[in-house]
């Protein structure tokens, strides 16, 4: 069966989705990632969806589920490179993915993950929000 490759880089996992996601593929990705996070002590997961033009509610929900599952297993998830049209679709579908970190591109996503992990290490408590000072 077709699978989306999951790259391991130190304590991070990297996934770039470059094919049209269908439901089976999304479910398989959720399983693969959960397995990998729990088996190898992963702290951060980066999912790049810049090549994804179309997203339906199932894919959106799967992305949310990946983040929530990873959080339970003590790993942060960042979704990067979302296309404007995809963002609008997800919001219109009511899937604003609270609790999922986002970044404009993979590079910024990595920075975000690193700073999130160091925040967590310093503060001892990891909050869901992104806000620090106001």
């Amino acid at each position, binding site marked *: 069966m077709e699978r989306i490759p999951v790259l391991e880089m130190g304590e991070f996992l990297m996934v770039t989705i470059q094919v049209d996601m269908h439901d089976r593929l999304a479910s398989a990705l959720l399983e693969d990632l959960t397995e990998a996070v729990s088996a190898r002590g992963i702290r951060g997961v980066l999912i790049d969806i810049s090549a994804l033009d179309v997203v339906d509610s199932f894919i959106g929900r799967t992305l949310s589920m990946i983040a929530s599952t990873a959080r339970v297993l003590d790993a942060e998830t960042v*979704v*990067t490179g*979302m296309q*404007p049209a*995809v*963002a*609008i679709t*997800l*919001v*219109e579908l009511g899937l*604003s*993915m609270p609790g999922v970190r*986002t*970044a*404009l*591109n993979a590079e*910024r*996503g990595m920075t*975000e993950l690193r700073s999130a992990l160091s925040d967590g290490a310093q503060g001892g408590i990891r909050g869901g*929000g*992104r*806000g620090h*000072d*106001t």
Partner: protein
Amino acid sequence: MSGDVESLVLELLNGRRQALLEAWISSQEAAAGSGWSTASDPDFVRQSTELLDALAAAVEADGFTVTAPGYKEVHRLLAELSGTHVRLGHTPSETAAAVFSLKDAIVATLGSDGGPDGVEDGQLGGVDRLVQGLGLITFDAYVRGREQVIRNQHEELLELSTPVVELWEGILALPLIGTLDSQRTQMVMENLLSSIVEHEARIAILDITGVPTVDTLVAQHLLKTVAAARLMGAECIISGIRPHIAQTIVSLGVELGEVITKPSMAGALQVALRRLGYTVRHAEPAS
């Protein structure tokens, strides 16, 4: 009788098209009112010529039935012709009169020939029907042309009213003016998101100073925009909240969640700069 007049007109269109064209153009000039000459618009003569060509083919194929498929080309050319009139700023009646003047041209050209081919009163009915049909098509096209102009202006207005400006590297500002309905929200969202990509922005300031009222629907639209920007990795600050709008938001029970809000754009810019690690301070006095 009707068959006779059809062949008569067809013969006229085929045999003496040039004479008919000249007669029509001069009567169109007369009909369209003073201060306008077809000589000033080369398009116009070309369109009239093409129209007569197409009309000849259509009458040959389908007689005087203007709704028949043979008249497709005539419909297109009439739409183009009325577009020219719209562009020149002619009124609907001037446009219609220009087309109706074709009847005068046909009658005059038939009559001037003299002899047995001269048109009889009874045959004029057929010509009337044809020209009236053409006039109605023109009028439809004229109204459609106007509506298109209105639609284009509406779109331009939407574009104009939702500018996105870069305040600082990585900081965008979006001054919202006027009421936010679903259509405008969509526009604002698209503009904002594409600007986020273009400028690689991290923070967007939505300034609602120019939004007259905030009800639950407007608040929902704002929150949608914030959520979409967040999905793209940019944080939103809502600024320009006037006191009575703050009261309305609270009394409506709108939950703004973790969105940062500031009374003024200046305050929002300060927050944004701090987020990006900039500090703003007074320079040393020059003297």
